[in-house]
């Protein structure tokens, strides 16, 4: 609503795009001949595609078009774009809309072709038609009102985040050494958490496949560098995980694996497996090597496939099992994980994959899962019934995540194992912070929904 005045934040002196749009529509009303509008519904993209820098680039795509035609573009607060043109041939508008559509080739929103009945990507309005003009004005009013509410919410959320001092200074080469040094000496044994992966058999209670041990990152951060944002550089964070690997091995190597009720999985850098520290760990647990599963990140594997193969064979010859982590439903469409020849594959689920259930795609994914050996596939980050349904449709029967933890604990009449109970008693992270904590690769403080390697080598407490 154009008349709303803004009292807070950066918008104080600036008119919003929504109010500018409404003013423009008012002007159009006087002489609507030749005007038309295109509403590009970028807000309906999957969350992963709705990142700010994507949207900036999408709106830049219109630059030349705006410069060369009588046209205006509004970048709305909900990410939608609204283009208003006067006397521009439709054939000149189509290409630029198509260009924007082309930026999101894998998104379900862009599936139906331009102008088709199912096209949800854009809506066209002929503003010389009173009905259309009215409809767009009403829609714009709604958008403005929604934007106002959203802006206020975002402002509060930002303030909250600020208060939590979650961002801090970015991780950079000049503070990295000190943090690394601290990580080498800080006590970490009490920060080690675990989460089980379950095999779900319909009608029966879940059966533990293994229990993954990881370092509660958020708590560690508090201990070593409360004011530094660990995720500002994926590479520098990865560097720190090399140190954490060694700490983790030292702690786990001292525990007696014979007393552990379940198989144990650890997320390590490939380089760590080839290190002297791992050798020492192996000597400590040697006869129980068969109880251990070593998880590698797919990004680490792709960086040097040869070393991965050597490490994998090296581990398997000694009795360990190997798991490839950091996959997601999108990634497995682009490479065949069966090639990794690992014992397990972990696919991280995300709500953005709901609705990705066209028969054809499901059949294709089923095939990929079957090829990879479906008994070795684990769907992780399972936080809802949707995730389980999605996995089951693909033939997956092994799951890891909050939701499955809850499900299993209600199904189990007896008390949980001690480790499980500790994990359960942790307060569940709010959905907003969960991805931020767990994305090692995600640099932005606003968690960029990472597509592949978002599972960290060491996960924060209770992250699913």
């Amino acid at each position, binding site marked *: 609503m154009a008349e709303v005045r803004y009292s807070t934040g950066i918008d104080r002196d600036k008119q919003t795009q929504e109010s500018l749009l409404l003013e423009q529509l008012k002007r159009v009303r006087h002489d609507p001949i030749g005007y038309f509008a295109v509403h590009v519904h970028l807000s309906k993209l999957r969350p992963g*595609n709705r990142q700010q820098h994507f949207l900036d680039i999408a709106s830049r795509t219109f630059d030349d078009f705006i410069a060369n035609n009588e046209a205006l573009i509004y970048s709305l607060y909900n990410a939608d774009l609204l283009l208003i043109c006067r006397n521009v041939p439709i054939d000149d508008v189509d290409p630029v809309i198509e260009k924007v559509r082309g930026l999101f080739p894998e998104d379900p929103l862009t599936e139906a072709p331009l102008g088709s009945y199912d096209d949800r990507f854009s809506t066209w309005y002929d503003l010389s038609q009173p009905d259309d003009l009215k409809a767009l004005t009403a829609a714009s009013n709604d958008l403005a009102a929604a934007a106002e509410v959203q802006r206020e919410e975002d402002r509060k959320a930002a303030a909250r985040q600020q208060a939590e001092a979650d961002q801090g200074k970015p991780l950079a080469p000049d503070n990295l050494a000190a943090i690394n040094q601290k990580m080498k000496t800080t006590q970490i044994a009490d920060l080690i958490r675990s989460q089980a992966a379950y095999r779900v058999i319909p009608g029966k209670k879940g059966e533990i496949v293994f229990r993954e041990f990881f370092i509660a990152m958020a708590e560690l951060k508090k201990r070593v560098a409360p004011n530094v944002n660990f995720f500002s550089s994926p590479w520098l964070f990865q560097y720190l995980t090399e140190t954490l690997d060694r700490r983790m091995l030292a702690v786990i190597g001292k525990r007696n694996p014979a007393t552990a009720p379940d198989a144990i999985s650890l997320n390590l850098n490939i380089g760590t497996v080839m290190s002297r520290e791992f050798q020492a760990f192996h000597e400590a647990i040697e006869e129980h090597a068969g109880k251990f599963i070593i998880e590698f990140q797919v990004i680490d594997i792709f960086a040097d496939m040869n070393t991965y193969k050597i490490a994998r064979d090296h581990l398997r010859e000694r009795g360990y099992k190997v798991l490839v982590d950091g996959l997601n439903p999108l990634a497995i469409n*682009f490479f*065949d994980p069966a090639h990794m020849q690992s014992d397990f594959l972990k696919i991280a689920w995300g709500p953005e994959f709901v609705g990705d259930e066209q028969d054809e795609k499901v059949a294709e994914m089923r095939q990929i899962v079957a090829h990879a050996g479906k008994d070795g596939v684990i769907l992780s980050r399972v936080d809802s019934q949707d995730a389980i349904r999605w996995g089951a449709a693909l033939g997956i029967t092994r799951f890891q995540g909050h939701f499955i933890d809850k499900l299993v604990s209600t199904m189990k009449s007896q008390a949980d194992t001690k480790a499980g109970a500790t994990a359960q008693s942790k307060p569940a992270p709010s959905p907003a912070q969960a991805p931020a904590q767990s994305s090692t690769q995600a640099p932005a403080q606003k968690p960029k929904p990472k597509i592949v390697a978002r599972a960290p080598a060491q996960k924060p407490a209770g992250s699913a």
Partner: protein
Amino acid sequence: MAEAADGNRRMASQEQLLVDYVRRLEQHAQGRSLVQVHLSALRPFNRRDQHLRAAATEFEPLIKSMSGQLFLLKTGDIFFFFKNEARGQTETAVRKVKYMFSDDPLVADEEKTGTTFSSWYDATSQFPEIQRLVKSLAEAEAKRLEDAKSRMDARAALRAKQKMGEPMTPEILARIENSLGNADLSNLVRRQFACRIDDNMVPEQSFSELFISIQDLRETLMPNINLVANRWLFQHLTETLDRRMLSMLSKTDRVAISGPISFNINIRTLMAQDFLMFDDNVAASRRGSMIIELQKEDIFADLGSYLFAREFVQSKGYKVALDGLTFETLQVIDHKRLGVDILKLVWNGELADGGENVAAQVRQIVEDAGEGKSVLCRCDNREAIEFGRSVGIDIFQGRYVENLIAEDGRRRDLLRLKRRMERAEQDQDEEAPANK
């Protein structure tokens, strides 16, 4: 436990047993043959342990009746030595195994791609060939073990340190990045040409890759430091180098860039302000002759960003290359779906050692990618060019190609000199009578 470890070390691998067997075979070769069943070339989902075991089972009756000896290698290949009387039964067993995998491209596309499912050797007449084959297998296995060992060996680490310098640390990275901020790097920019190479080994330039020489950077800034010792720190450094490169490319007076060029960049840089600024400064007509090279690990670190960035730069007219591919990654990655314009395969002697089945798979991928879309890079010998040409690659890059360019330059110079001399002679001849 010491015993177990010892036992483990002494437990002979199938590769070792095979070497021993072949050594002894020399005396008993008469009346025997070998079939190598190339299960290593099966697609990985067909190459699981249970599949290989099932395949080996087909030979069980022959082994029981003492007519043959089987070795199942780590690669998945089966080596089966048999008495010639049992040839018929062996052929049946191989046929059965083949039938088990009839859906696999190795079998299904056999005629189209020229792959081989099994190779047959006569132990007497072809003994040297068998020896060679087994020796190369044993060497590959030994090298693999050596590789694994040397990575954990403190001595090897020490040697690397002496040769390459002290490993990079965060402190050094910080210092380097500070000094990079204001250093003029244009004298560190190197240019390497990628060329088409004809039958006579004459190169013709296709495009040139611009890069900042890490070697020279090291010499200039930190002579005793091994910049690549830690992958993650190095990766961070490349983001800084990306920005410097982009700003240099924007100022064309700094680096003379003519003809089509390529440069390596991180996807994160591609999505940042630096690239947008660079893009603003590039003439639209120039974009079509610029190739943006991306690393596979970078792509898979954030596939969503990649898909977006690729679409963005391609729609602007740039071309996108997928760099750093090896035979393994080439097989794993669905490059078609990734939608890149150019594939850059890194040359490695193992490509040629892989035999016809490897060549057939590479050829298939090169063909799928389309003509002129594949580049073989880091070619350091003639073998690389020969292999590339044999699988349909016609663009090459690397030290050897640089040599060919230099050689071609010399040849042209010589030719020019020769022409000049001939002309001079001619002139003399023409003048001579007059002089007389």
